[in-house]
């Protein structure tokens, strides 16, 4: 469990990003058995080592996946807070707390508790920004933020941040894991579409189709939510791309 910590972290984030950004349309093909194994491992670790930072981190991530309720998210935030007290410099935990806060804000918005929604949304985006700006060269953190921002509603205006991040990621294509650049290209098209520059967005999508004609993402429309295939997910997990960054 401990040795697979980094791998778990990545799996958690990929699942988390998909859950938070794609909602029901996400067709993630991690098998049920794999997910069950992941959950069991995290739960066992948390119950055996309740106060330990790593188990708290994983437990927090677990609480954020699978359509979390407000209490799940509050618990996740508490776990991240506890973890950050012991590991104040962990930017992944900061990013995780940011995700949880924005997801909680979304739930408060549904409940029409606008004050809490505004407070949590502001805190969430602030934490994400702080995490990225502390290590501007960390591609993994930039991708996590861009993935979220490129699919955030237009009125939030995060598409400008996503465009900047995605351009940076594509400029550093050689450092990206295989399969990530097509996601970045598609996300960039989506962010451009959100910015109102439809022509550029279509051109970006056209570039993706030319560069990767057989990639499932090439056949997607801009209005569609992003899907990720099992192969892409596995390729991300096989070679953790934050290595060396």
């Amino acid at each position: 469990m401990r040795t697979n910590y980094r791998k778990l972290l990545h799996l958690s984030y990929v699942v988390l990003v998909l859950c938070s950004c794609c909602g029901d349309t996400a067709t993630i093909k991690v098998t049920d058995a794999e997910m069950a194994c992941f959950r069991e491992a995290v739960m066992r670790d948390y119950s055996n080592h309740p106060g330990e930072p790593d188990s708290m981190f994983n437990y927090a991530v677990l609480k954020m996946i699978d359509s979390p309720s407000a209490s799940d998210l509050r618990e996740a935030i508490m776990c991240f807070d506890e973890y950050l007290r012991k590991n104040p410099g962990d930017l992944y935990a900061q990013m995780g707390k940011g995700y949880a806060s924005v997801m909680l804000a979304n739930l408060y918005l549904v409940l029409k508790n606008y004050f809490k929604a505004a407070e949590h949304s502001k805190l969430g985006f602030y934490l994400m920004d702080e995490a990225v700006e502390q290590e501007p060269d960390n591609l993994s953190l930039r991708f996590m933020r861009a993935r979220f921002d490129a699919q955030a509603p237009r009125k939030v205006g995060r598409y400008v941040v996503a465009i900047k991040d995605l351009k940076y990621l594509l400029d550093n294509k050689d450092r990206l894991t295989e399969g990530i650049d097509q996601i970045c290209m598609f996300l960039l098209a989506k962010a451009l579409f959100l910015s109102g520059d439809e022509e550029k967005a279509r051109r970006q999508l056209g570039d993706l189709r030319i560069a990767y004609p057989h990639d499932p993402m090439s056949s997607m429309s801009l209005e569609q939510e992003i899907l990720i295939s099992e192969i892409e997910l596995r390729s991300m997990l096989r070679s953790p791309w934050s290595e060396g960054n």
Partner: protein
Amino acid sequence: MISCLLITVICSLFVFSLLTRRHDVKQALFNVLRHRRRTAMTLAAIVIGGASLFIFGGFFNYNLWSYREVTIRGDLGHIQLYRKGYLGSGVSSPLKYGISDYKKVASLLRRDDEIGNHIKAIVGQIGFSGILSNYEKGTSSNFIGLGIEPASSVSLGFLDTVTLGSDLSDFDKGGVVIGTGLLHALKSDYDDHNDVLVINKHGGQDAMSVRIRGVFQSGLKLRDDATMKMPLKTAQRLLGTEDVSKVTILLDDTNMTDIVADRVKKIIRQNGLDLEMNTWPEEAVMYKQIVTNYNGIFFFIKVVMAIIVAFFIANTLMINVVERTREIGMIRAMGATRATVWNLLFLEGFCMGLIGGLLSIGTGWIIAVLVNIHGIPMPPAPGQTLGYTAFIRMEGAMDIVWFTFSLSMITSFFASILPAFKASQMIVVDALRHV
């Protein structure tokens, strides 16, 4: 106060009847249950009126509460600390009345056992003004600047919605956030560089290039057209000072303001700090004016509504008595005294008031819950640019519950006096002949 007194009188009369004329109480209850149509009509009158007042009160309550919280949490905070003399003559030159080590003050307040837990944020701010220019576009505009710690701006000023880009950051010292109106005036865009020109602490001019990392909208046109926020450290460097012009304390509960303010005063005195203090009601002049104005309007509407409801209930009870003239005549013919008839009708009114009051609250509550599912879309308030969704606020609304209940009880009581008097004065044969 008057309503409490009247309710006490009414309840005392009921208790007196219960102790001395228990049979009358039973009879009154029996009458209420027997005349189902009349009872239903009277209760409907009470419930419609009572529930309307309940909902109206909750709506009014929400508007005032939300305006108060927007004022406080938008920018003002609950308690403001200034260097001594600032409130007298420092407003025009805030940089000359700076607080030098505000972090020490903050830690002193946070460590206090009595109030530490109620403090949500202690924010050091620096206010200034100047000119912001976009040379590429040939535009410039005056601005009101606010230097604030980025982490604190998440708590204080969280209602300034970022509509483009990001909020302030500790790691992007040259990144500023400006209002939508100011952005349009400068014809700038996200990530554009602009130049700031200010008068520094020593009276000289200072300039700096800043990058627009975010655009916000507060809903207040004046604020959106002129405000620029930047990290506190950047503002201090720009103005050539280490001080802050104001320390704002944000609490977890507005109702704690007075308690915390008293304790803060004591801490300032005990530690010999060179500070003076204000609380939000003293600073929120516009809020006070609007609330006073609204209170006047709403009081008038409430009185008119209460009168209409009272007449509605009284009318229904009067019709009840007229319809029951023969029955009253029969009771008198069987030997009941005038006092018994009077008492009987008073007790019926009491029962109606009690049941009606409780039903009004229940019905009002259910309607409020239903309305709150979607809220009530409202146009922008005076001076604002964004509309909002209003709700019916029931939390801590004991005054509304009491008003609704007491109105039902008191109205039923007074409405039953005249019919009870008339009924008790009837001549038995005339009453029996009544068609």
